[in-house]
């Protein structure tokens, strides 16, 4: 069977700076992978290369069997397969919550408006925020905004969901509501790649933890293994810091 995501020999430079060094990374269908690592280790760069918010310099990227190359069609197709949730939500502030979820379907999939709104309502209900559908993003709390952002991505019916630190811009009391939505999503069998430092979440849902440092994948392990007996000295140091802070 095809992997949901297949990355081989990925290199990424920002000018002279070598941000991703020969990364091999794959995610099976329905697998949940948590990526962690210190700041600047290239976690964001990696998942942003997967849906080409950043262009990579060399290596192969395949999403749902679609090879990313110079063909723009394939790029569009990959972006349709992969939904993304950002640290800072990036909701469209000039559109109502419902419109945030409906309009992208209309614009990128040419979904008829009625159908798009129905689906928007359905997914807003799933993230328990349908009652706020008429409000604007600026009128919601951070946790609510992030749940809307998740609903917006899900409305596009992606096969894979990419999360880049979805809870790290949130006040502590709002983290739970977002994680709960993500746990439910995982239980429903969504393929997920999550950059996060929420180790409780990793323990609860991850099939695999990938530890990155300095643009390289340093360790890949199951959560139990990673948290109880990290093999690599560097991931051990990272974990001990997480516990103390």
């Amino acid at each position, binding site marked *: 069977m095809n992997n949901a995501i297949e990355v081989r020999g990925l290199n990424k430079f920002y000018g002279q700076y070598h941000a991703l060094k020969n990364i091999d990374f794959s995610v099976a269908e329905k697998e949940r992978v948590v990526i962690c690592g210190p700041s600047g280790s290239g976690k964001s760069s990696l998942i942003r290369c997967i849906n080409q918010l950043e262009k990579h310099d060399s290596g192969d990227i395949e999403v749902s069997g679609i090879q990313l190359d110079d063909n723009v069609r394939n790029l569009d197709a990959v972006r349709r397969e992969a939904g993304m949730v*950002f640290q800072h939500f*990036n909701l469209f*502030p000039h559109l109502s919550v419902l419109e945030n979820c409906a309009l992208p379907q209309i614009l990128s999939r040419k979904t008829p408006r009625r159908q798009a709104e129905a689906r928007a309502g359905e997914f807003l209900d799933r993230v328990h925020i349908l009652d706020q559908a008429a409000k604007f993003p600026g009128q919601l709390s951070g946790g609510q905004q992030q749940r809307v952002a998740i609903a917006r991505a899900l409305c596009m019916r992606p096969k894979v969901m990419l999360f880049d630190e979805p809870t790290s811009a949130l006040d502590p009391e709002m983290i739970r509501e977002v994680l709960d939505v993500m746990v439910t999503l995982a239980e429903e069998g969504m393929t997920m790649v999550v950059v996060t430092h929420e180790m409780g979440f990793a323990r609860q849902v991850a099939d695999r933890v990938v530890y990155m440092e300095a643009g390289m994948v340093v360790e890949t392990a199951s959560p139990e293994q990673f948290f109880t007996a990290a093999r690599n000295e560097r991931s051990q140091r990272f974990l001990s810091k997480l516990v103390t802070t």
Partner: protein
Amino acid sequence: MANAATPPSGEKPVARLVKLLFGDPLAAALTLLSAVLILALLPLVQWAFVDAHWTVAAPEDCRAGGACWAFIGAKLRLILFGLYPPQSQWRALTVIALLLTLVLLSLSPRVWGARLLGIWTLGLVVMLLLMRGGLFGLNYVPTSKWGGLPVTLLLAVISLGLAFPFAVLLALGRRSKLPVARGVSVFLIEVVRGLPLVGLLFVAAILLPLFLPPDWTIDKLGRTVAALTIFAAAYLAEVIRGGLQGLPSGQIEASQALGIPYWRMVWHIILPQAVQKVIPPLTNTAIVMVKNTSLVLIVGVFDMLSAARSAATDPMWPAPSKEAYLFVALIYFVICFAIARYSRHLEMGVKARNRT
């Protein structure tokens, strides 16, 4: 209630008034300045209202002094419609009515969109055909005979409307990663901004025909619109660029991640936000452009100001140019003030949405 009205110190109302008007040096200065201004305005009030002639039996009756508002009544058609044939002036009036209707229909941001744009395009075509005639038994009126308020309004609306898409392209080009697009945009914007509008109008109306082959007769009104459009586009481009600059990159990233195609993203995601951010300078440009249309009189286009000027040269009336200019100024003021109030209203809407 009675308690609240009584000042705690027990001051007398007169004392409070004196304190309010002369309490500190700034207040005293302002009070004096206002008094001088009011005194200076008294003769104007006398002229405009007390001694004014609202109706006269003959133009000679206005010689007595005081404003001759009767002149405006007598020349209203000339000022509003210029040399447009009197028996067809209902068409010009209909154009004004149509335009006002469209404006009123477009006030609520909720109706903005591609459909409204279509309606406006259609409406403007209908207005131009109505002015021009030559169809459906309407007699043909060449653009050289068009004049007055319809010309002023059409010049403003059409030049701003046509300028907007160019302005968007220039603004996007100026921020583009492609050096060629950026260079061309910067060059065009700076060249046009460096030229006075009067110069641009001269080039379009007078010089351009000298260089074009003689059988290439683009209408003078059309060339004037082109000059106004180019001018407005350069200024609007800079305003829109300001709006684009404040836009977080996350908005574009989110659009890309959702697979929204580029031009749809520009139209639905980027522009609405950029425009919302720059409502005050956008309003400013719109108001300036409305008033700039009056400059077309120097190339012989008969806008409202030119019409008023020519009305005032009628030797039958004793020098009524003050009244004519004041009347035109009042119309300009009403238009510009309405634009300003409307933009204020839009801004409040944006603010309300961004607050809990």
